[in-house]
C-alpha cells in the first residue's frame, strides 16, 4: 500500500535528483555500509533465525500433543504458537526479498483459513503429512490454520474436543511451517541463498539494489507499508465493519500482540537492534544527522504507539465493541507513526 504524500515526495525528490544528476556526481556520497550490514545481519537475519528456531519448537510441541493429548500439552503448543508468532510479526516490517519473491509469505501467513476445505481434508482418508501440506494452498496451512485448530473458532476449545485427525493435521501443519521458516532463513543467510548480500552490498555488486539509497528506500518503504497495514487493514477492517471474521489472530486472542509486534518490527529496523543483537547502526543515525527533531519524533511515536495498542482493555475482539475509543486511539497512534515515517523520514532517505 502506498499513499499520496510519500508518492509525491518521491516524485519531487527524484525529479530534483534527476535534474541535478551531473552536479551530484561531484559530491562525495556518504557510505552507509555499517548501517546496511547491521540492519541485515543483526535485525533481519536474527529475526528470521528466531522464527526458524521457534517454529521448530512449535512443531515439537504439536508432536508431543499428538502423542499425548493432554490439556498441559495443548497449553504448551498454544504457548509455542504465540512465541513463534512474535518473531514473524516482528519480521513484517521488512516484507521484501525471499519472503515476498519466493511465495513464502502466503505459505506462512495466509488469511482467511479455508475452513470448508480444512473440514473436507479432515473428513478424508488422506495421510496428513508435511509433504501433503507442502502441496496445499497457504489458506490450508500456516499460522492461522494451526491457530484455528489449537483454539477453535471461538477460542474456547478444550483438548477433549480435538479429534485424532486434528492432532495429526496440527503436527503436519506445524512441520510445514517449520520447514518454511527454515527455508526463509536459509535463503537469507550467507551460507545459503545469501540474499543478505544484496542488502549489505547494495550499490556494490548487489543484483537487487543499484545503490545504497535504493536499499535504504526499500527498508524505509517497508516500515511505512506495515504501519499502513496495521492502521488501515488489520485494525480498520474488523473495527470499521464491526466484523470479527475480518480480525486476524482472533482465535488465539493474540491480535493486540500481533499489532504491537508489527510496530516493534519498525523499531527494530529503525534502531538497529533485535533482542540481544545489533550495535545500533541504523537508519536512525542517518535521520538524526539530517533532522534530529524528526528522529526524536519517530522514536517517541513508536513507543507511544506500542503502549496505546497494549493498553487497549481486554482482547481486541472485545474492545471493538466495548472500548471503541481505545481502539480508535490506538489506530490513530499508528496512523500518526505512519505519517511521520512518510512525511519526515522517507523524504530524507529518498533525497540521500
Amino acid at each position, binding site marked *: *500500500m502506498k499513499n*499520496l504524500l510519500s508518492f509525491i515526495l518521491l516524485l519531487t525528490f527524484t*525529479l530534483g535528483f534527476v*535534474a*541535478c544528476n551531473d552536479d551530484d556526481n561531484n559530491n562525495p556520497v556518504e557510505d552507509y555500509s555499517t548501517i546496511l550490514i547491521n540492519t541485515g545481519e543483526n535485525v533481519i537475519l536474527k529475526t528470521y533465525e528466531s522464527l526458524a528456531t521457534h517454529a521448530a519448537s512449535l512443531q515439537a510441541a504439536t508432536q508431543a500433543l499428538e502423542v499425548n493429548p493432554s490439556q498441559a500439552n495443548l497449553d504448551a503448543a498454544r504457548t509455542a504458537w504465540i512465541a513463534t508468532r512474535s518473531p514473524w510479526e516482528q519480521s513484517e516490517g521488512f516484507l521484501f526479498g525471499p519472503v515476498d519473491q519466493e511465495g513464502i509469505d502466503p505459505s506462512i501467513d495466509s488469511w482467511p483459513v479455508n475452513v470448508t476445505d480444512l473440514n*473436507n481434508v479432515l473428513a*478424508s482418508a488422506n495421510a496428513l503429512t508435511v509433504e501433503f501440506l507442502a*502441496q496445499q494452498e497457504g*489458506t490450508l496451512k500456516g499460522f492461522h490454520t494451526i491457530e484455528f485448530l489449537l483454539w477453535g473458532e471461538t477460542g474456547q476449545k478444550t483438548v477433549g474436543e480435538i479429534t485424532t485427525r486434528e492432532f495429526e493435521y496440527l503436527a503436519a501443519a506445524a512441520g510445514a511451517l517449520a520447514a518454511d521458516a527454515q527455508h526463509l532463513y536459509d535463503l537469507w543467510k550467507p551460507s545459503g541463498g545469501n540474499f543478505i548480500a544484496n542488502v549489505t552490498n547494495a550499490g556494490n555488486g548487489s543484483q537487487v539494489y543499484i545503490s545504497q539509497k535504493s536499499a535504504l528506500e*526499500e527498508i524505509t518503504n517497508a516500515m511505512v507499508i506495515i504501519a499502513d497495514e496495521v492502521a488501515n487493514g488489520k485494525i480498520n477492517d474488523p473495527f470499521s465493519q464491526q466484523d470479527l471474521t475480518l480480525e486476524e489472530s482472533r482465535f488465539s486472542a493474540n491480535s493486540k500482540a500481533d499489532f504491537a509486534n508489527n510496530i516493534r518490527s519498525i523499531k527494530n529496523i529503525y534502531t538497529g537492534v533485535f533482542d540481544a543483537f545489533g550495535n545500533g547502526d541504523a537508519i536512525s543515525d542517518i535521520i538524526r544527522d539530517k533532522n534530529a527533531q524528526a528522529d526524536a519524533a519517530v522514536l517517541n511515536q513508536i513507543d507511544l504507539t506500542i503502549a496505546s495498542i497494549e493498553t487497549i482493555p481486554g482482547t481486541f475482539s472485545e474492545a471493538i465493541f466495548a472500548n471503541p475509543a481505545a481502539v480508535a486511539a490506538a489506530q490513530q497512534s499508528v496512523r500518526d507513526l505512519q505519517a511521520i515515517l512518510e512525511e519526515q523520514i522517507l523524504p530524507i532517505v529518498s533525497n540521500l
Partner: protein
Amino acid sequence: MFDVEIDYNMRNVFLSCITVVLCIACNEDDPVVPIQPESVLAGGETTIFSTGPDAFTFPLANLDEAGLSRHFIADGIFGQQFVSAPASQFGGIGPLFNQNSCESCHLRNGRGIVPQYDGDPNSGLLLRLSVPGAGAHGSIIPVPGFGGQLQNKAIFNVAAEGKLGKTEITQLVQYLDGSTIELVRPVYTILDPYISLPGEVLISPRLAPPVHGLGLLEAITDDDILSLVDEHDADGDGISGRPNIVWDVLAQDTRIGRFGWKAEQPTGGQQAADAAHNDMGLTSFYFPAEHCDGQDNCSDGLQTGYDADDETTKLFAFYFQTLAVPAQRDYDLPEVKKGKQLFETIQCAGCHTPKHITGTHEIAALSGQTIFPYTDLLLHDMGEGLADHRPSYQANGQEWRTSPLWGIGLTQVINPKATFLHDGRAKTLEEAILWHGGEAEASKEDFRALSKKDRDALIAFLMSL
C-alpha cells in the same frame, strides 16, 4: 487504504514544489537544466520514479484523490487469497484454478516464475489448451473435459486437471564476431491428466505478464492501432502487423484485442474477469458460469450469485488500470543513447512503436497522455522458434502481440527469478532478442551482426526502460 488528508489543490502545491526544488537544487552550479527527452516520462503525467523492487506498485502519479482511495482498496483485493465456498469472507475459489490470488502469479505486479520442477504448484505459468479448428468469431475450440486452459489445482475433493511437465531443447547461436550463446526452448506437456486427453491437443504456455501501465494501453485509440496496420507489408520493410479481432462479452460484439500474449482480450475489465474466471475459478458478471467444459468436477459449493461480486470484479481491473509506469533511467549515458539509435537502426521500433498519445479514458488521469510503451499492440509472425501452433481468433500459431517494453529493465530487480517471452524461456533480454524470428528475422540478424560493444549498448538502452 488512503487516509492522509490531502486534497487535489494540495497536490498542485506539491507539484509546484517540484519546480521549486528543481530551480533551487540547480541554482548555483548549473543554471541550465539538462534537456530531458520526453520519452523519459514513459507514462506522461502518470509517470513515477521508483527504481527499486516496488517500481510496478505505484498508482498513476496524476490520479485524483477519489481514484487513489479506490486504488488502495483494489490493491488489497489484488493480493487477496480466495478460499472454498461457503466461507464468511472471500469464498468461491475454483473448483478448478491455477492460483488463489492475482498477486500469486503477478509477483509485485511483475512477471511470474516458470515452473522450477515438474508439477511445481507455485509457478506463474499456465497452459492454454484447444483442439484444432475455430469456433465462433474465430475463437479457440476448448478441449472436452479440460476447456481452454489447464487448471493444475482444485479445491479439496475435486480432481485437478493435471500437472505441468517440461522438457528442454538446447541450441547454440553464433554471433558474427564468433562468440556464441546457448538458448534453451522449453516444451511443456500435461502430466497425470485426470481423464485421458483427446488425440490432438494444442498447448500454449503463458507466463503471467507484468500488469503495470495497462490502463494507458487501454487508452490508446483504435484508430491509432489501426494506423499502424500493414497487413500485406505494403511498405516492403518485411514487417506487416495486424490487429487481433476478438469477442467482447459485454458488448456482445467483436473488437480489437489488446491484452495478453496474443491480444485475446479487448478491455481491461474483460482481461481481469477472464483471469479471475480461468486462473482462480471466480464467476462474475462477465463470466457467470464456472468454466466447465463437459466436466463433472465443476461445482465449487457456492450455489447462488457470482463468486466475485460486481464491485470486486471491477476492482481487479481498476487496480492495474491505475498502476503507473516508471520513468526511463540513465537516458543521458552515452551507451544508452547509442543503444537507442541502434534500436531505431535495426528496426526494433518497427513493431515496438515507441510513442503513442492516448485518447479519452473513463479514468481521466489516463486521457491525453504522451506515452512510450514501445508496442504497436499488433500481431506479428515471430517465426517457428517462438510458435505455439495454437491459433486464437485472428492470431495464427506463429503470431504474437508486440510486448510493451516500458519497465522491462526493472524486471529482475522486481523479481530476480523472472524471465522473458511468453513461456519465460529467455533468462536475459539478449536471449529474448535472439529468439525473435519471422517478421523480426532481419532485425535479429542485424543484432547478430553487431559488435559486442553495440549489442551491449542496445541492451543498456532496454535496461534503461
